[in-house]
């Protein structure tokens, strides 16, 4: 488990239909395996379809769900020689939220579509429906079964009823995006993506049956899990892990501050919007008093109206696209810090046992088996964690690049809309001046 396969390359935001045939020539491989970062607005796009399918490190999966294209995809993938020696062979999409009204409760399910050539999957394609609880279950299982790895965060479980409408379009869409991200991060992970619970989650028709069965599974695994949560205390964290811990602390703190500032900005922008919505119509009132000036004044009123609409779009985008990512990374940091603590536990256990052996002062040539096992476990944990951290850092850079550029782009678009609105009334005003 140590080391593990390298991070998957970014394939760029091309639809596979646009990609040249792999056998067409060497230049085509660069088109497929390039390191281009996708343009930020693809992340922000709200329409379903190819644009949504940006993976954390920039790859895109197959386009549509029609059998013809997926088989051609598989053809290409089988013949394709990836630069890093890796082939993308698993694609997962979360979409199509639907509301279910039952006697006991109302809830939302999402469609999970999986396409894969991996042997672990019996069929090349699956489509199942899952609700948030199922995702929550999956995450717990992953945490249990892969304690040495960083498990991606889920969007928050609880929402304050009355403040947030759980069934509003915006809320559901925000959640869907986060759930999609969650699965894609797992898909990208060289170890987690092969996890059997993950497989079942993606494929099983009846997940609940499996969940019940899984309790038995838990008892068998219980032993190793218990070990990880044993009550040993570590004296000092090794430097490199201490550095990671400090980094995560500061990182989460800064993100928290940015989140608060962003919320404050949105609040101020909304208050500005309220005033603008009163301001524009006053020009209309004035225009009703006037003769020659009526048209230009009405024009100004309409112009301000357009600016108001543009501002509203900006604040919506910030709320729906910017804030959730910040929060996701804060949750991520928190879960990562727990993993660090677990690692400390494993090291502590090892050191304790080692000390115990040393204290026994027996002249044994070799270290007892269980101490060796502890050492192994610790070294595996360290290796897994380091690999995951590096992967996480890369993905984090990509994600934030997209996020911040997206924010900048949205702001630019807002100003461009305003500029256009004002420029459109210049001719109206100039014509009046010339008439004089």
């Amino acid at each position: 488990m140590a080391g593990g396969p390298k991070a998957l390359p970014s394939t760029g935001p091309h639809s596979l239909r646009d990609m040249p045939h792999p056998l067409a020539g060497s230049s085509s491989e660069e088109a497929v395996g390039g390191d281009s970062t996708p343009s930020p607005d693809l992340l922000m796009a709200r329409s379903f379809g190819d644009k949504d399918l940006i993976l954390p490190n920039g790859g895109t999966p197959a386009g549509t769900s029609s059998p013809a294209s997926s088989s051609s995809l598989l053809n290409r993938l089988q013949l394709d020689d990836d630069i890093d020696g890796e082939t993308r062979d698993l694609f997962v999409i979360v979409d199509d939220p639907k509301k279910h009204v039952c006697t006991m409760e109302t809830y939302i399910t999402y469609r999970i579509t999986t396409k894969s050539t991996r042997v672990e999957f019996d069929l090349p394609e699956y489509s199942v429906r899952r609700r948030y609880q199922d995702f929550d279950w999956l995450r717990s299982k992953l945490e249990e079964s892969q304690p040495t790895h960083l498990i991606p965060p889920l969007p928050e479980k609880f929402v304050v009823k009355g403040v947030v409408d759980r069934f509003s379009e915006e809320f559901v869409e925000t959640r869907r995006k986060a759930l999609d991200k969650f699965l894609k991060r797992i898909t990208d992970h060289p170890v987690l993506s092969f996890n059997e619970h993950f497989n079942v989650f993606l494929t099983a028709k009846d997940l609940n049956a499996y969940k019940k069965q899984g309790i038995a599974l838990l008892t068998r695994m219980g032993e190793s899990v218990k070990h990880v949560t044993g009550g040993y205390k570590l004296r000092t964290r090794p430097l490199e892990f201490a550095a990671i811990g400090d980094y995560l602390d500061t990182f989460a703190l800064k993100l928290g501050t940015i989140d608060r500032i962003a919320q404050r900005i949105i609040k101020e922008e909304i208050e500005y919007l309220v005033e603008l919505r009163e301001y524009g119509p006053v020009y209309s009132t004035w225009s009703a008093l006037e003769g020659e000036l009526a048209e230009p004044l009405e024009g100004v009123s309409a112009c301000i109206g357009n600016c108001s609409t543009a501002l509203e779009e900006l604040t919506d985008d910030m709320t729906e696209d910017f804030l959730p990512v910040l929060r996701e990374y804060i949750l991520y940091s928190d879960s990562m810090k727990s993993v660090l603590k677990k690692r400390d536990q494993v090291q502590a256990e090892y050191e304790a046992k080692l000390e115990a052996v040393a204290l026994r002062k027996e002249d044994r040539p070799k270290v007892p088996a269980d101490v060796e096992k502890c050492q192994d476990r610790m070294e595996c944990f360290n290796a897994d964690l380091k690999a995951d951290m590096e992967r996480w850092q890369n993905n984090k850079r990509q994600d934030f690049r997209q996020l911040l550029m997206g924010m900048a782009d949205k702001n630019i678009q807002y100003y461009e809309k305003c500029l256009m609105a004002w420029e459109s009334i210049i001719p109206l005003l100039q014509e009046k001046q010339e008439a004089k």
Partner: protein
Amino acid sequence: MEQAPRDPERQLQPAPLEPLGCPDAGLGAAVGKEAAGAGEEDSGVDTMTHNNFWLKKIEISVSEAEKRTGRNAMNMQETYTAYLIETRSVEHTDGQSVLTDSLWRRYSEFELLRNYLLVYYPHIVVPPLPEKRAEFVWHKLSADNMDPDFVERRRIGLENFLLRIASHPILCRDKIFYLFLTQEGNWKETVNETGFQLKADSRLKALNATFRVKNPDKRFTDLKHYSDELQSVISHLLRVRARVADRLYGVYKVHGNYGRVFSEWSAIEKEMGDGLQSAGHHMDVYASSIDDILEDEEHYADQLKEYLFYAEALRAVCRKHELMQYDLEMAAQDLASKKQQCEELATGTVRTFSLKGMTTKLFGQETPEQREARIKVLEEQINEGEQQLKSKNLEGREFVKNAWADIKLCSHADQYVQKGNSSLDQC
């Protein structure tokens, strides 16, 4: 032609200056110059010079502002701003301008000039002054009269005021105005000596008092309504604009908070460090850009305020008409009742109930001599009344004619283009 002069002193030609090509007789001529005079109320010396005779001869500018301390009427220390007014006469031949006069005036002196003009030229829409105190402020800081930006905008407003008076065919010839530009010391005393405060109609101060006028000139009534509504809508506009500016300021300034946190974040990152640092810097720049943006917008607000004050001045003229008409109608009524009284006395019939009639019945009739005396008094009063009525009628008609001409002078719609252009900058 101005109103029948009640005070010969105030109406003088500005002697030392060049003879005006300006109309010197007959209102008709002044009205005829409407085309030449129109458009003069724009800000900026350029648009004014080429259309008006007066300004070809002289240039007026309020070129500087200075903070001063002195003692006020109550002998207390006060700080105020003085403005330098420079007058230049332009030589025909080489177009060179020579500084002829230069003096310092403070805002209260401008106010005095305007109040004087309001009284002596009631039918003229007297150009407005920039506001006395900063109103419609969007940020607490701007309420300070000593704020350099406020002082600068006021300087421009005062210059416009003087230029507009100078370009007005009637007002430009006023002696007090001339002295305002040329005689630094003693000017206040000179103005007060005209006794204009006594002539001021105190009823004008009661803006909302209604006077039941039976036959007002409909044009004036309509105009008064228009100016009321215009004032109302522009005030509303200015208030909301101030709130909009306030909120916009908040939005920009909160972005400034990003500056620090991005900088702190960049410290813990390797590859991302430079980018984040740069982002933080740009957020700081963004946050500080709002100050200039909003300062520019103040100029737009100033133009709106000009409209507001002009509407006020317009309303004042309409009001004066109303009051005049009211006085006229009252005088006519009074005359009619006196005539009736006279008739009753002469014929001995009492048609209407009167105190005199009652007392006569109670205490006996008066002697024929007494009656004669009273009839005589009444007849005199009637005569006076008729004279008054005639002159009031004349006055009223003159007023209406002059005022309407002046209103025509003011009405032009191309200032809004400037307004529109400055709105663009705010975007």
